[in-house]
């Protein structure tokens, strides 16, 4: 009989339905695990009492033979989702003490599906970062350690690093993340889990603390590709409260999961071979290409000519939208207030004390590129290049069914690294940002280990609203990779 922690989301769901385990038992085990892994700093808030109450309610429903898609399954929520009555911080000091009086649509969907909330996970402040090191609550830590350097704590990636660390460290069965430029996929790659950014519009943004509204998208972070399909099915859906929410019906995401890649055309973009890319990233990519070819896919060389301009485009568009979205934090309606001699000074003092360094940089860049005289040169220009990036993908997807690329340009780096120069941190998103700008679905699947013994992910990109294809190709990679490595900290759990 395998232990409780050997069960992934789908296996736990089946065991609960078969009444082999109870949600109370499963939830208590995960809460104990959260305590045991407190050093990961994966959670900002643990909602133990609420979790046990939700688990008991799920057990009552399961006992009656009822129960929805995720009934009784304990999950973690990135602290960017508003949860009614539960501290929601976006990992920022400026949201000190904020307890929303409403529930985000995505989390409401999860609770309606029977999921149990373990707590709220750590992240980069306002989801701005690739290390989860800009959190006001201190950095989240990767459960993995380098083989030759087990003493050095590594980042779990970001911004959804707390969610990634929790899933990889078995301190949550699955978790929600959000992805603006790679914030689900890059941490999934760094921690050896599956992370899926759906098409823009699949999941409602209502009640998610806004960073860059034309890019933000919620998605699942799970142990397996099938888990991601099951979790996304519960999270997604049209929501009239989000005007950008897609009306397109969500197809059955599990139906074609095992269909294989025989006869599919898989694109390999030349421009993703970037200067200075470590050879092990090229190697894992080559291995992924070989796996898909061996499974019967046709590999097609494609070109996405504007790839190298995606990051600069993103670092205009995202800060511009952020500076506008973050204007609401003024010390009047919620969170921190730092008094001043007048109203204006109160605003400035509150924002100066409440926002961390990276958020301040982005607010200032965003304010600048939107200001009179610079709007056309920066913001309009970036929107035009964004159109070209989208056009590149449209043309490529006329010839291929999916695209295969690396997820991140490296394995996990040390806590505190890459902080001397903001652009150095931005380069982490070089392979994830293009699809974000185009609104396309993308998923990172664990594919192997680096020379340091750390996980490396491969990324599958699909056409707009073609999550079934992304999952199908992702599943083929998962099968071929047979990634069973675990962080050393899980031995004996």
């Amino acid at each position, binding site marked *: 009989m395998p232990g409780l922690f050997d069960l992934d989301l789908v296996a736990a769901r089946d065991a609960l339905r078969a009444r082999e385990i109870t949600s109370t038992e499963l939830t208590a085990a995960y809460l104990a695990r959260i305590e045991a892994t407190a050093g990961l700093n994966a959670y900002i808030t643990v909602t133990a009492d609420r979790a046990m109450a939700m688990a008991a309610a799920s057990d009552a429903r399961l006992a009656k033979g009822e129960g929805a898609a995720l009934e009784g399954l304990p999950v973690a929520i990135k602290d960017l989702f508003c949860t009614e009555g539960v501290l929601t911080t976006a990992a920022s000091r400026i949201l000190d003490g904020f*307890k*929303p*009086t409403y529930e985000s649509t995505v989390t409401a969907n999860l609770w309606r599906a029977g999921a149990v909330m373990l707590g709220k996970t750590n992240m980069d402040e306002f989801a701005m970062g690739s290390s989860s090191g800009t959190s006001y609550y201190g950095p989240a830590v990767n459960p993995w350690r380098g083989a030759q350097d087990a003493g050095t704590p590594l980042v779990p990636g970001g911004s959804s690093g707390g969610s990634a660390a929790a899933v990889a460290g078995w301190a949550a069965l699955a978790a929600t993340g959000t992805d603006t430029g790679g914030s689900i996929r890059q941490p999934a790659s760094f921690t050896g889990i599956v992370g899926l950014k759906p098409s823009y519009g699949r999941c409602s943004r209502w009640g998610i603390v806004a960073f860059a509204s034309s890019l933000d998208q919620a998605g699942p972070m799970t142990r397996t590709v099938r888990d991601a399909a099951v979790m996304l099915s519960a999270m997604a859906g049209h929501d009239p409260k989000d005007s950008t929410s897609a009306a397109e019906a969500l197809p059955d995401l599990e139906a074609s999961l095992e269909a294989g890649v025989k006869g599919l055309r898989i694109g390999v973009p030349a421009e993703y071979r970037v200067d200075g890319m470590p050879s092990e990233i090229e190697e894992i990519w080559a291995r992924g290409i070989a796996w898909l070819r061996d499974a019967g896919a046709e590999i097609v060389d494609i070109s996405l000519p504007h790839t190298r301009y995606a990051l600069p485009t993103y670092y*205009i568009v995202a800060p511009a939208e952020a500076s506008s979205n973050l204007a609401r934090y*003024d010390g009047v*309606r919620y969170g921190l207030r730092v008094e001043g001699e007048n109203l204006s000074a109160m605003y400035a003092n509150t924002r*100066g004390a409440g926002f961390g360094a990276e958020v*301040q940089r982005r607010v200032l860049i965003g304010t600048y590129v939107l200001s009179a005289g610079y709007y056309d040169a920066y913001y309009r220009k970036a929107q035009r*290049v964004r159109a070209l990036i989208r056009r590149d993908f449209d043309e490529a997807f006329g010839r291929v069914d999916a695209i295969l690329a690396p997820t991140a340009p490296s394995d996990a780096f040390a806590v505190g690294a890459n902080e001397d120069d903001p652009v150095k941190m931005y380069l982490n998103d070089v392979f994830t940002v293009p699809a974000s700008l185009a609104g396309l679905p993308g998923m990172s699947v664990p594919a192997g280990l680096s020379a340091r013994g750390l996980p490396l992910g491969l990324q599958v990109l699909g056409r707009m609203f073609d999550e079934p294809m992304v999952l199908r190709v992702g599943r083929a990679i998962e099968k071929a990779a047979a990634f069973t490595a675990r962080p050393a900290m899980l031995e004996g759990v």
Partner: protein
Amino acid sequence: MSLDKATVASIAALARLRVPEERLEPMVADLNTILGFVEQLDEVDTTGVEPLASVTGHALPQRDDAVTDGGYPERVTANAPDRVNDFYAVPKVVE
């Protein structure tokens, strides 16, 4: 285009962000690094390209201009740092 200290101070004022004097110099350096990076876009010929602001592919949905929610000021103001009855309280604006 390179920003100087005075420009950054005025952007900070526009953004209602108090940046202490000793933080201004490092901020100028950081912002110039970022601007130097994004200015690569000047290489791209975007003549005749329409700006892309939204990837939804659908027009913004419209609905009747009607009140659809509300009527609970205590919930709306529940998180306010300072309030008086059902109102947000702020430092005096008019003498």
